[in-house]
């Protein structure tokens, strides 16, 4: 019945006895940029991790390309064209930039490695300058770029980003969002979890607002930007 690329139907997730998500339903269509905003502890990261099977959704279904992925182990999900850029970047600090990119090819094999690596260096010229440098020595912004590039090396159909603006200077954040737009231009579907509601909603086609594990609001990026409730809670009044 559904033609959505990713569909989440009424999932509940728990950390031990604490319920982190309540009947969360959302969908992302092919080629869209969708953002999920919410305050600290609303369950944004939990939702992304649940999509990747950790913690598992106890109730509900997660469908990707119409296939049920709710009960698949994490490493299998990554092989189906869904890539996650985890919160806090999580690059391999002891490996060089280039090696980090090569690690990204694990789900698909080395077949297109050379070609894709070249494409990443075009998308992120900074990474090419630093290709032989250990990733741990990069600046925060460069590390975030590397994390995004590494995720793209798996040729995913859809890329999930967890707070790519975390701890970065405003100028760098701006650059990251520009890059995301470029990536969307390449035909990738993007699901973006952000605290930086202003930037995220401006970029996104549609958005969801998560409050205490429940989806409170949804709508197009513009609608949500104009919504007084959202303005009050996430954009600092006015």
């Amino acid at each position: 019945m559904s033609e959505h690329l990713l569909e989440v139907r009424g999932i509940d997730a728990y950390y031990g006895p604490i319920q982190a998500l309540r009947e969360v339903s959302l969908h992302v269509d092919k080629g869209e940029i969708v953002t999920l905003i919410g305050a600290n502890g609303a369950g944004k990261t939990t939702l992304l991790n649940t999509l990747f099977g950790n913690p598992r959704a106890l109730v509900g279904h997660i469908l990707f390309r119409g296939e049920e992925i709710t009960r698949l182990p994490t490493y299998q999900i990554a092989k189906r064209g869904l890539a996650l850029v985890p919160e806090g970047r999580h690059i391999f600090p002891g490996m060089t930039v280039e090696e980090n990119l090569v690690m990204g090819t694990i789900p698909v094999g080395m077949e297109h490695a050379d070609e894709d690596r070249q494409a990443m260096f075009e998308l992120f010229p900074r990474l090419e300058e630093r290709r032989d440098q250990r990733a741990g020595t990069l600046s925060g912004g460069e590390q975030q770029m590397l994390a995004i590039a590494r995720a793209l090396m798996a040729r995913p159909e859809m890329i999930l980003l967890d707070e790519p603006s975390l701890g970065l200077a405003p100028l760098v954040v701006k650059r990251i969002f520009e890059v995301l737009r470029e990536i969307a231009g390449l035909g990738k579907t993007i699901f973006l979890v952000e605290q930086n509601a202003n930037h995220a909603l401006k970029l996104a086609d549609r958005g969801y607002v998560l409050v205490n594990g429940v989806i409170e609001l949804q709508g197009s990026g513009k609608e949500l930007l104009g919504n007084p409730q959202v303005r009050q809670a996430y954009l600092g009044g006015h």
Partner: protein
Amino acid sequence: MSTHASPTFIRPLREAGVTFVLALIVFGPISGLVLDGYSIEPHLGRPLLIASIVAAGRLLFGVLEQTPFGQKLLARNARKASGGVTVARGDEYKLLYFVVPLVIAIGVTLPFVANKYWLGNLILALIYVLLGLGLNIVVGLAGLLDLGFVAFYAVGAYFLALGAQYLDIGFWTALVCAPMLAACFGAVLGFPVLRMHGDYLAIVTLGFGEIIRLVLNNWLDFTGGPNGASVPAPTIFGLEFSRIAKQGGTPFHEFFGLEYSSDYKLMFTYLVLLVVVLLMVRFLTKLRQMPMGRAWEALREDEIACRSLGINHVIVKLSAFMMGAMTGGLAGVFFATYQGFVNPTSFNFFESALILAIVVLGGLGSTLGVIIAALVLTLLPEVLREFADYRVLAFGALMVLMMIWRPRGLIRPKRPHFAPEV
């Protein structure tokens, strides 16, 4: 930051002075007072000489530091000290074409030159090299702290001893089967510890090591308990290394018309061991460039990233444990053969700690470092036999000093670059 001003001598001179005094304090009592019969004779010239040499060396360094050449060296060292792992890009290996054949040649000729005592020490040293390489996979590459590694060593050794006793298997069968059995034990240990990290993992592995030892110690009927079990001498194409062969067999020395000597057995063990160690080094180097080796290092660096990249961390951890255990089992077979006898006291926690010390001192993840550390830690105590009582003390002090000044080990871990050239 290279200053092209002419070198100043004031600071180096002052430092040399301090060095002189320190050296006098250190060497004074050691070399200045000589025990002669019941009296102590002062030889004050000697500490003065030693201290002058040391101070002169310090002065030379101090001056050299200020020359452009010295500056360059310092800069290079500073770059190296940036911490972390260096990546070899291939051209560093040119040197290896000379060094590797040389090392092999020395390794092969040694048993024909060394006496029995040193041959035994060399075998032990190589056994520790093997153990170090095995633990290096688990601790150095995959980053899983294993304090019970000696368990796999015991499994290998006891497999040969008990296998010979109950199933009549020999050295060669054990050489093939013991690593497999040890790998199975590695998997058994691996499963429960998959979810654990750091301290918890260390405690569980520590317990595992002790369980194996206590079972070997207390299962009197099967293992012989503290009395141990004897291990038969190895054979080569059915030729035995004993003075008189068992029924039907021919001893090695008779077959070749040589005088009987118990050294042949040791030489044979040494040569086979050398081959196994060399193959293992080669295998490990290759493995690090393959996806499995990459996945181990990635797991050490960041488990969350690994999982989001679709690495099956269960398989990766298990494979690290099994590979490490396999190597440990292999070492056990050689140990049992060399000793001709095994009992549980050879496999106590101190052994685990020693192997871990080898890996840490050598540099976590550095194959060359682990080999050097294993040789140093096993051969040095033999050279310094007189100080045997202080051995453990010296180890402890060495560990403390290493952690302060060279926390990444003797040799900085170097890893073959695994991204193919564009």
